[in-house]
């Protein structure tokens, strides 16, 4: 995609091959945005205003090159949604291998950190922007078997809050969306019994929809949310 005279707002989303990331990308493409996405695999979205790059967000250099290319092509980034992450393989702490733990550290924490770091530099120079990271209510439910996943999401939340304080003087807002159980490719592997048990613990006892998450992303991308930063919006759960 060539930048030429693109005047639509530019949204960067990580992890757009499926699930929530793809849903957010399609939502904002339908609402006139230029969307720049990435995943480790081939693109699954075909749209004239969608640009895709194969990026492993845990690879610092790949992320640097990708974000630098976005700046060259589009000139600016208005909103960043850090969605890429892994959810697979729940196991008790005592049964969690070092390799599994490292995967969560590399992708969910370092991957999010790399992208936020590079995009925040662009937003600092443009004196504005919105950064949204995705957490999970598992950080509130503390479900057995979710230690590696939950700790990674808690780390992302803390990083987002620190970043919010660092870049606030540059009119950059950073917030966390923490959805309760969603029906996506990532959660389809859970059995119905597990899902039901989680719903029972939620305040709103049903899955959060992708559209509901998009509504929040839309709010955080808008001028109406300019006074809100460093916040965690828990969807479906009273914490």
């Amino acid at each position, binding site marked *: 995609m060539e930048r030429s005279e693109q005047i639509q707002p530019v949204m960067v989303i990580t992890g757009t091959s499926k699930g929530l990331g793809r849903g957010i990308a399609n939502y904002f493409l339908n609402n006139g945005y230029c969307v720049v996405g990435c995943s480790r695999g081939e693109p699954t979205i075909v749209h004239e205003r969608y640009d895709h790059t194969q990026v492993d967000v845990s690879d610092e250099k790949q992320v*640097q090159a990708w974000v630098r290319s976005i700046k060259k092509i589009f000139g600016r980034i208005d909103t960043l949604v850090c969605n890429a992450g892994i959810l697979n393989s729940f196991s008790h702490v005592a049964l969690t291998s070092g390799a599994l733990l490292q995967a969560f550290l590399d992708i969910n924490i370092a991957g999010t950190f790399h992208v936020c770091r590079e995009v925040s530099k662009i937003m600092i120079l443009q004196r504005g922007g919105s950064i949204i990271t995705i957490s999970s209510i598992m950080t509130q439910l503390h479900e057995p078997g979710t230690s590696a996943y939950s700790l990674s999401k808690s780390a992302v939340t803390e990083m987002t809050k620190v970043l919010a304080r*660092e*870049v606030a*003087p*540059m009119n950059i807002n950073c917030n966390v969306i923490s959805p309760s159980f969603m029906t996506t490719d990532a959660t389809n592997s859970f059995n119905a019994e597990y899902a039901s048990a989680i719903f029972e613990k939620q305040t709103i006892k049903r899955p959060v929809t992708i559209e509901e998450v998009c509504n929040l992303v839309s709010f955080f991308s808008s001028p109406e949310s300019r006074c809100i930063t460093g916040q965690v919006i828990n969807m479906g759960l009273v914490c």
Partner: protein
Amino acid sequence: MTYEKTYELICDTLTSLQRSGMLEEAIVVNPDTVILGSGSSLDSLGFVTFISDLEERVSAEGNQDYYLILTEIHEFNAEQAFLSAGTLARYIEKITE
């Protein structure tokens, strides 16, 4: 990239910061001018802005992507952060050669 060119890019970046209002006064730059640390005119966000802007200028001048990584500067001590214009210029000269 020569030392003189990298030094010029540093000066240009500081001038740009001053014009944007991030620096109250223009800095007279010499190799000993403190960019980071006690005596610097830049606060923490100002320094981040300076490095981000300088990174883009160096990349544009060198026609390829360069990244300024403080911990790769030989003289840089992260525990007692201090960086002069001259040290930074020499570092950029080194990574762009």
